[in-house]
């Protein structure tokens, strides 16, 4: 069929590619049909709220309304508030230990599992917690951490060796480490799956050649495997940092930020300040701080994935 045989009275959006490689614009009605639902919803439920929250963070914000402009007071109060500083410090602890250990353990599991036939089973076992709600993870680990040595697995092990029982979630010294361990347990499988795929892309000839040349397993790991996974590792690290900034469920369910305020994190702080203390201006300021931390990280992420199909 030749393009010129198209009747001229076609409805909009049809037969558009008649001329010059088809650079004609789509009819406005068709565009609206496809793009308008998303655009409108985003404007009303995301863009407008974002702008309102920015403004609210500069306001007393009684009852969530704009009541009195206070400039940067909310932000100044925030950084003079020891619980907020504590939350930031805890987020940093999470970033160092959660991100570091998830990457390290994920790589170890991937490298070791690669050597056996039941690799897929090991990967599935370690990946499984990714499917489970953080609320359920919290209950699973509350049980492991239970102070009673007849109930909690960890204290039962300690009791078997006649050691002093530990209040994993009740003592400020242990609580953050205990919560971070839950996070690590939940995310290691994710790192394993990604790094395992990267390892599979290393040509076997390279490994064979290295072995024939007398390289030991440690040298192979240092000189071949590590450089090959450094890029996926950095992408993973960014994703894990984003997880930490959004972290809410595990501390909320397991300790409610306690004992005292010792396990609070920034997303928890926003929720408490807004919905339990009713300080909506302050809560908005915390949300804006989260946005400011997020912008450079997500910009990096989006740039990485912009040109490639992710699925």
């Amino acid at each position, binding site marked *: 069929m030749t393009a010129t045989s198209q009747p001229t009275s076609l*409805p909009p959006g*049809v*037969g558009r590619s008649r001329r010059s490689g088809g650079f*004609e614009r*789509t009819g406005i009605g068709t*565009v609206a049909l*496809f*793009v308008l*639902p*998303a*655009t409108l*919803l*985003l404007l009303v439920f*995301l*863009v407008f*709220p*974002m702008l*309102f*929250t920015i403004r*609210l963070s500069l306001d007393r914000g009684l009852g969530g309304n704009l009541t009195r402009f206070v400039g940067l007071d909310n932000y100044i109060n925030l950084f003079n508030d020891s619980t907020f500083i504590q939350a930031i410090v805890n987020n940093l602890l999470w970033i160092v230990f959660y991100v570091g250990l998830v990457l390290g353990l994920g790589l170890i599991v991937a490298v*070791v*599992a*690669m050597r*056996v036939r*039941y*690799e897929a089973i090991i990967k599935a*076992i*370690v990946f499984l917690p990714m*499917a*489970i*709600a*953080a*609320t*359920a993870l919290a*209950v*699973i680990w509350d*049980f*492991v951490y*239970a102070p009673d*040595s*007849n*109930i909690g*697995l960890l204290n039962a092990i300690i009791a078997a060796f006649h050691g002093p029982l530990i209040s994993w979630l009740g003592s400020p010294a242990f609580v953050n480490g205990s919560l971070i361990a839950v996070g690590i*347990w939940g995310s290691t499988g*994710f790192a394993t799956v990604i790094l395992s795929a990267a390892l599979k892309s*290393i040509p076997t000839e390279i*490994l*064979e050649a290295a072995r024939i040349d007398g390289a030991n397993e440690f040298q192979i790991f240092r000189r071949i495997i590590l450089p090959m996974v450094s890029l996926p590792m950095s992408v993973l690290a960014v994703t894990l940092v984003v997880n930490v*900034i959004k972290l809410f*469920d595990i501390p909320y369910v397991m300790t409610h930020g306690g004992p005292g305020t010792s396990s609070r994190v920034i*997303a928890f702080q926003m929720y408490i300040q807004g919905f339990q203390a009713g300080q*909506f201006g302050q809560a908005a300021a915390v*949300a804006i701080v*989260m*946005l400011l931390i997020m912008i450079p990280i*997500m910009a990096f992420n*989006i740039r990485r994935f912009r040109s490639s*199909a*992710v*699925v």
Partner: protein
Amino acid sequence: MGMNNAVAASAAQPAAGTPSARIVRFLGRTPVHITLGIIALIWLAPTVGLLVTSFRPRSDIQATGWWETITTLRFTLVNYQSVLDAQGMGRAFLNSIIISVPSTLLPLAICSLAAYGFSWLRFRFRDTIFLIVVALMMVPVQLGFIPLLQLFKPFHLTQGFLGIWLAHTAFALPFGTFLLRNFFITLPRDLVEAARIDGSSEIGIFRNIVVPLSVPAIAAYGIFQFLWVWNDLLMSLVFVGNNANYPMTIQLNNLLGQYGTEWHLLAAGAFLLMFAPLVVFFSLQRYFVQGLLAGSVK
């Protein structure tokens, strides 16, 4: 895998295939097997412990650890029954479904349409608008909480399910559109152009060509979004204002607050919450892993 191949292919070890050589090789790798055994144990024991506990009578749970179950093989379904009926998990299970299904289907439909628009239609400012949509991925949900509650209040949207549906849908749009658009643009251009020349409408091309060819991407995204909503606690805490509509995540958290040491209830409750994700995990593992990996950008 690399090592297997290296050993099997190496001419220096001609006996690699014989049974005795296999045993030697197996023993030589004992540390590997032990390491993996410990890893498997660490990742299974906590979940298995709670699963076993969910079937043990309350009196047994209080008396002995779950690892001693082998000495007292008594199992019961009473825990599930009481958590479903008396503790409201049955109602919450239903609520989780009522919340999750529209919060998955709505973004799927809206994101697919938008993704098609941003990949195959031609209009002014197309790429600029798309870039803004993508940039909105940076916005943490926390920025929406207070204004959306104010917006929903006059219409009492948090009393029903509409508020949580809208909130989940809106916050799913930037990422969903981004993900599906990235897939749609990889489809062959000729296919779309040929359909246009044949006089097919854009909606026809979308429905008959683009969507059928994109089933893997749409399925992976759909599963990701479903699990995201099913497992969500925070959005429900904020946007579900009516106790009767609480999903399982909130209900389980409330159980933990009320009965922190009643492990027979908590264990059964936790496994009810895990039910849907585990079914998806074991039945659709391929899409599931893809969906979660893709979702990691979110």
